[in-house]
């Protein structure tokens, strides 16, 4: 495949996985957790590197997933001691991120791991870091990792679809029906962490938040059905990847930055133009008729 082809495939995989996971994130009102986890995965990656002394995908994935879970556990723990939810997120992720930054500066030296890279990602190098696979041949490492994570996300999402729906909508009912709400919460946090770290190399810690939140927030404006929202969100993620790439090629600027910018543009279009909740429809639609009297 061409250089451009690999870039677009990588970016689309990021858009798709992040779009799917992002829906549940915003419906569970956990958008801030995405921000937190996107930063603390850095600590996981650094520690995985310090232990194994190599920057392999699998080690990074495990390290970052554990760091993401640690974040979720610490936030929950601080919250139960009486600290506000948002404050505990702020405390935990900045602290863990800072430890990661200090470790990079003092222990890692000039390995291929720096803060700039962690924050902004470097999708332009991705097509050159390949691994040999049977049948398909040389494939960029990031594509392999993103595809594997996407498969895991899809399987877990579909297999536990109704469980995600009920624990997001009404956790109290879910618990009273005997569903393991806490376990599902941490499983979800693990998926967020995996998705984040897989997307991390391509788009970095800041842009991954845009890919997680914005397509899902846009999709939310277009539909009243969860399944449709998931599909739309994934689609908007992929579309943002394409639009972002071509904006970057046109203006000769950062690809990840342009992709995040594209999610913002698509959100604005949704915000203004969505037939159900968009601003334009509010201006043009007549006020809702008074509801029919309820029947006893």
């Amino acid at each position, binding site marked *: 495949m061409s250089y451009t082809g690999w870039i677009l495939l990588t970016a689309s995989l990021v858009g798709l996985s992040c779009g799917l996971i992002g829906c549940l994130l915003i419906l569970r009102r956990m958008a801030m957790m995405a921000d937190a986890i996107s930063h603390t995965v850095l600590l996981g990656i650094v520690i995985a590197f310090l232990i194994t002394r190599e920057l392999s995908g699998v080690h990074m994935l495990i390290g970052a997933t554990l760091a993401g879970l640690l974040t979720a556990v610490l936030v929950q723990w601080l919250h139960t001691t009486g600290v506000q939810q948002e404050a505990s997120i702020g405390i935990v992720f900045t602290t863990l991120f800072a430890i990661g930054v200090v470790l990079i500066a003092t222990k890692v030296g000039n390995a291929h791991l720096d803060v700039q890279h962690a924050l902004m990602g470097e999708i332009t190098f991705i097509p050159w870091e390949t691994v040999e696979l049977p049948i398909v041949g040389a494939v960029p490492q990031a594509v392999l990792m993103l595809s594997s994570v996407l498969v895991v996300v899809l399987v877990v999402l579909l297999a536990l679809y109704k469980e995600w729906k009920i624990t997001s909508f*009404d956790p109290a009912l879910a618990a009273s*029906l005997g569903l393991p709400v806490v376990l599902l919460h941490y499983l979800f946090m693990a998926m967020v962490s995996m998705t984040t770290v897989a997307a991390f190399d391509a788009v970095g810690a800041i842009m991954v938040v845009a890919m997680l939140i914005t397509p899902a927030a846009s999709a939310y404006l277009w539909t009243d059905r969860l399944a449709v929202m998931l599909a739309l969100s994934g689609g908007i993620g992929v579309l943002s990847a394409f639009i972002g790439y071509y904006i970057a090629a046109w203006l000769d600027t950062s690809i990840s930055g342009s992709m995040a910018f594209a999610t913002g543009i698509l959100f604005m279009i949704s915000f203004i133009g969505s037939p159900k909740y968009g601003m334009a429809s509010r201006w043009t639609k007549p006020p809702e008729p008074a509801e029919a009297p309820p029947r006893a």
Partner: protein
Amino acid sequence: MDPVLQVNQLNASYRKNKVLTDVQFQIAPGTLTGIIGPNGAGKSTLLKVLLELHPRLSGTVSFFGTTYAKAKSRIGYVPQRGTVDWDFPTNALDVVMMGLYGKIGWLRWPTRKHRELALQALNEMGMADYAERQISQLSGGQQQRVFLARALVQDADLYFLDEPLAGVDAATERAIMNTLKLLKEQGKTVLVVHHDLQTVADYFDHVFMLNRTVVAHGPTADVFHQNNIYRTYGGTIRWMGEKSG
């Protein structure tokens, strides 16, 4: 008959404040009980502690002579309407089907049979025409009926409802009370957190008066009188309705 719910020496706190002290009672099968008490009396907390949604400090709770975990499938819970996000992308039918998720089991999807059960429950609550309606487009009363329908499909033997009549229209209030009385006639046991003292005598055959501990509990005709109401509400109540029981 054995009680469906037996609570002994229950203590619980909420944000480090002791809310429930030595709560002790039992509920007989086939009763419709109103749980009343002033704001902050611990009514919602009591429900959450019984359903293990909130930890207890001490005491024992048994359902149908066994633990909550073993009796779970026989217990239905209707939380306060305000506890969920009504902007969630789903419709009324879907919310009702959620009541069946425990029975459907892992790795399975709802089938036509579940859909029909949910439709039937919506119909019983006079909400069949709204099945496909997005839940944010429903009025408060209609949302509460959807919650009731969801409890009905659970087909439980014991129901807990947290303020189901708060902020609903008169027609919804009638529909809900008729449904609860029907459940009782089917031999089911219903406990309702209630806030309107004027309707207690009409609606409930038993009343449970709570203010951090049990003030009075028994048949409405026996215990719902002025003296107990004053003991429950302290000096905070200015008016009470005529007692009809």
